[in-house]
Every structure is written in structure tokens, then in C-alpha cells.
């Protein structure tokens, strides 16, 4: 029952800390698209790929004391921080999990802004489209973000780097 939870904990263990729920959502989605074995189901919400299953699992891990959630007031909203706890590390050691190493990908993803990750995850959601159609689609589904062509090019380059199979 806990394999999917353990996979997420392996992620938190390698990430050391994650800031922002939106960022967490987009990182796991991108890792999934890089063929890492995360099984949370995503749907396209009004602001990009989002998984209620992931949200629930993280909440459960927090309730179990395996992940620590810290809230911080930033301007007019709440920023969430996540870290694996000592209990979480102990649990993970008992769990014989066979996961590919993702340290490098996580480091690359963590270094990017949530706005950029939102763009990358949205582009991956429409991965079958040609570049022209993809650009048009980005502007259709995210008109308010005003993504520039430079940002879209940068995101394409990033996708190739983070997932060379792409």
C-alpha cells in the first residue's frame, strides 16, 4: 500500500527541501514525464497539470510525521516548505525501494522558478504537438502569463536537458 508514498519520500530525501506547493506539483509531473516511477494521476487544471492524488499523499505523509510541512507568511499568501523528517528517513531505510537516481534532475528543477516549471509542465502536457502548435496552445491556455518566445525556447531547451530521451 505504501510504495507510492515511499517513492515520494525518496524524492523528498533527495531534494532535501522543497518550497511551494505549486512547485512540488510541477516537479513531480516533470519527473513523471522523465519516466521516473511516480504514479500520481494528473489532470489539466486552469493553471496547468495538477494532481489531487499527490496533494493527498503529501498530506498523509505529513500526518504520519514522515514529512514536515512548515507554513510561512509571504506578503499576502502562505508559502509551504517540505522536508523529510528523521522518522521518514528511518522508514525509508526499512523500505526496499528500487528507484533510479534522480538527484541531478531534482537539483535542476529546484533551481527554476515555479512560473518556469508551470510553463515546462504545460509544454510536456502537450508534448505531441509541433513547436508552432505548442506555442499557440501555450498562449491559448495561459493567456494571462504572457510567456515570451524566449521563455518558450528556454523551456524547450530545458526539457531536452532534464530528459534527454524527449
Amino acid at each position, binding site marked *: 500500500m505504501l510504495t507510492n508514498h515511499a517513492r515520494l519520500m525518496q524524492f523528498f530525501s533527495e531534494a532535501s527541501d522543497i518550497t511551494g506547493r505549486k512547485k512540488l*506539483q510541477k516537479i513531480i509531473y516533470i519527473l513523471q514525464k522523465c519516466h521516473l516511477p511516480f504514479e500520481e494521476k494528473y489532470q489539466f487544471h486552469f493553471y496547468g497539470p*495538477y494532481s489531487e492524488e499527490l496533494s493527498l499523499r503529501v498530506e498523509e505523509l505529513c500526518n*504520519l510525521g514522515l514529512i514536515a510541512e512548515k507554513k510561512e507568511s509571504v506578503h499576502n499568501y502562505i508559502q509551504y516548505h517540505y522536508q523529510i523528517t528523521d522518522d521518514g528517513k528511518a522508514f525509508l531505510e526499512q523500505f526496499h525501494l528500487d528507484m533510479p537516481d534522480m538527484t541531478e534532475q531534482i537539483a535542476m528543477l529546484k533551481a527554476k522558478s515555479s512560473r518556469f516549471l508551470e510553463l515546462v509542465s504545460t509544454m510536456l502536457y502537450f508534448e505531441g504537438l509541433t513547436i508552432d502548435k505548442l506555442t499557440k496552445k501555450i498562449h491559448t491556455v495561459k493567456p494571462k502569463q504572457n510567456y515570451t518566445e524566449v521563455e518558450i525556447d528556454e523551456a524547450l531547451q530545458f526539457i531536452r536537458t532534464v530528459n534527454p530521451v524527449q
Partner: protein
Amino acid sequence: MLYKDEQLHEEKVFKDPVHRYVHVQDRVIWDLIAAPEFQRLRRIKQLGTSYLTFHGAEHSRFNHSLGVYEIVRRIIGNFEDRDDWNDGERLLCLCAALLHDLGHGPFSHSFEKVFKLDHEHFTQQIILGDTHVHTILERVESGFSQKVADVIDKTYEDKLVVSLISSQIDADRMDYLQRDAYFTGVSYGHFDMERILRVMRPIEDQVVIKSSGMHAVEDYIMSRYQMYWQVYFHPVTRSAEVILSKILHRAKYLFESNYMFKLKPFHFVAFFNEDVGLADYLKLDESIVFYYFQLWQEEDDAILQDLCERFMNRRLFKYIEFNPNLQMNEWMDLYKLFQEAGINPDYYLEVDSSSDLPYDFYRPGEEDERLPINLLMPDGNLKELSRNSDIVESISGKKRTDHKLYFPADTLTELSDDSPVKQRIMELLDVNQYLKGDEESVD
């Protein structure tokens, strides 16, 4: 006359227990209903295993899809001539409403989990692939099938069109709440839909509710809340779903272990190999699943045979409340004790979780991205529903989660009373608690 404008010589109606009549005037809609991919929905129950709890819940995805179409048809009828409504989107809305669940398979939730499938992916494939539905949509105009797929995928440019089928107050929910309440026979789930339809207004890229209709919307939100906990997450239904998932897991495991089935499970091979093409997917409906479950009751594998016999004859697992926060060690102990007793815990011990967020609205920094229900105030301003309604405010953003531990009480009872393993298992499972659970089950 263009195909997209073609009307039937006389209006067709489907008698419907929820909406009284479903009206069809467009040739395109009539043709879509007749398409084999849509007719297939007759053979897929709307509520999966709920019929084992609520014996009336035998209605199909076909019934629900027609219902969603009918609600959207009525909404659009009310929107005609309003400033922010583009009547050119009418047929697109109707097609998307009718086809929104087209990719559901038999017992979708269990199949999706075990075989790593996504019914939404198959909805897209059916609409865009080599199918009758695709041919009909492309007759409307080139690229029309892609538009329908985009609306259902929530990526269509006109968010007003998307929100009719997918938002916190949409035609999909309004139909399934009423329909599921009707067929299960429960008293929750009813609300004044006619009133809601009368107070819906299209404004820019969203549907808003005239503030005078707020109480009807409150009733709808509370109906949804009740239906989730009283019907959709009913523990007896969940028990049947746990067994169903275990059957699929066991059959897949046996297939991968080169077990010789008495009859090769042809319809499942693509699923076991996790390489499911559209043709394989469309062939599998509930009648086929039941056929194999019937056969598997006579298989030599004791676990597959027992699980199928349980599912077909409603010999379900019992359950107790389970708090993962406090009882994880007990679960690990039980896992080992089941092994010692010769009962495979991978198939006979399961924690199942249900969770629901009845209503929420987007807050900066939060990860959930739900669009709020906005009220249209008399001064023309919009106000988010929970800011005006104490009832909705009390449940906004509050996720409720429930965990239960499922196990075969009858198998445990058959263990020797002298066995210390049995005594320890019974202590941990708290026999009194699960007996109480049994009395409360419906049907």
C-alpha cells in the same frame, strides 16, 4: 444543408427518470448516440461496485452521458441572446457534454490503478482516433474533433464552454448527483436544479450565479458533500472494490508467472502486458469482465478462485476504522501475523483511503487550482460564494479523509481457536468493532 446544421425531421426524445425527457434535434447528436463507442457505455455501470451496496445502482454511463447532454442543452437554451454567450459554440458544447465520459472502462477506478490506465486518455483517443465518433465529428468540420477533445481536456480557449462541463458547478455533477441519488434510492443528492439553471449567467469566461439563487447552490454543495460520504465512499462498496483490485492484481501476477489459465484470458492480455491499444480497450466491458470472473471461480489458483467467488457472490471483506497516524505499527504486526496464519496479506489485508474536498477556491500560493463559484450581486459585482454563504464557508477548503482496514473475517474465524496467531489477530482487529460495521452495511 451543412451536416452541422442538419436537424431531424421530428424531435427525438429519450424518457429519462431524472430529467423526464432528453430532447434531441441535431442530426450530429443523434448519430453520435448511435455510434458503437457510445453504445458501449450501456455496458458500463455508472457507479461501478456500488450495486453491491445499493441494489438499485445498476444505471450506466450511457444514462449519465445523455443526462449531462440534456442539462447543457437546457443551460444553452437559457443563454441564447445573452451578451457574453457565443451561440456558435452550441454544437461544440452539446458534443463535449455527450462524450465527456466516453473513455470510461469497466470498473474504471480499479482498472486504472492496477493497469496504470487513464480513462481521460482513452476519451481523447476515441474522439481523435480511427473511430465512428471521430468520423461523425470530422463531418461537422475539419478539426472539430480536436475542439471537442480540448473542451473535455479543459484546454479549449473559451473557458466558458469548458466550465459548463467541468467546474465546481457543472452539468456533469448536477446530473450524477441527482441520477445516483435516484438509482441508489437515498434521500441525499436532491437539489433544485431548475432554480440553478434559471439563475446561471454567462459572464466573460465563466458561468456565475445570480445572488438570489445562492441558497439553491448551497443545497447543491451540501448534496454533493452528503453523496460522497453516504454513497460514493460507502465502506461496503469500497470493500467490493478492494476485492476487485486484488482479483486483477492476482490475475496479472499469474499471467506474468506463466500460470496456465483454463481458458487463456484473451481480453486481458494487453492489460496484463500494460500495452493497451484503443481496440483492446473498447472490447473490454463489464459483461466480458464478469465472464472471466465466472470462469476464474473454477481456476486451480486458490487465491484467484476465492477472490472471484467473493466478488460474484458478495462475500465481501469486513472493515474497521484505521488511523495510519496511530496504527501503522499494528498494520505491520498484522501483516506478519497474516503471513504466519497462511493468509497472504498482499491479497487479504488492505488499507483503503477516501478523501474529498467539497468546495474550494483558488488562493495564491496554494497548489489547488479550482475556480470559485462566483455570485453576481445586484450592483453587478462578483463575489465568491463562501464570502457570502456561512454554510459553504464552513466546509470551504476542508478536506475530509477516511481510512479503513479491510480483511476476510470469515477466513479468520475458520482458524483454530487455540491458535495464538488467531487470538493476536483478533485482538488487533478488535472483533467488536468489525461486527458493528457489518450490522451497519446497506443491503
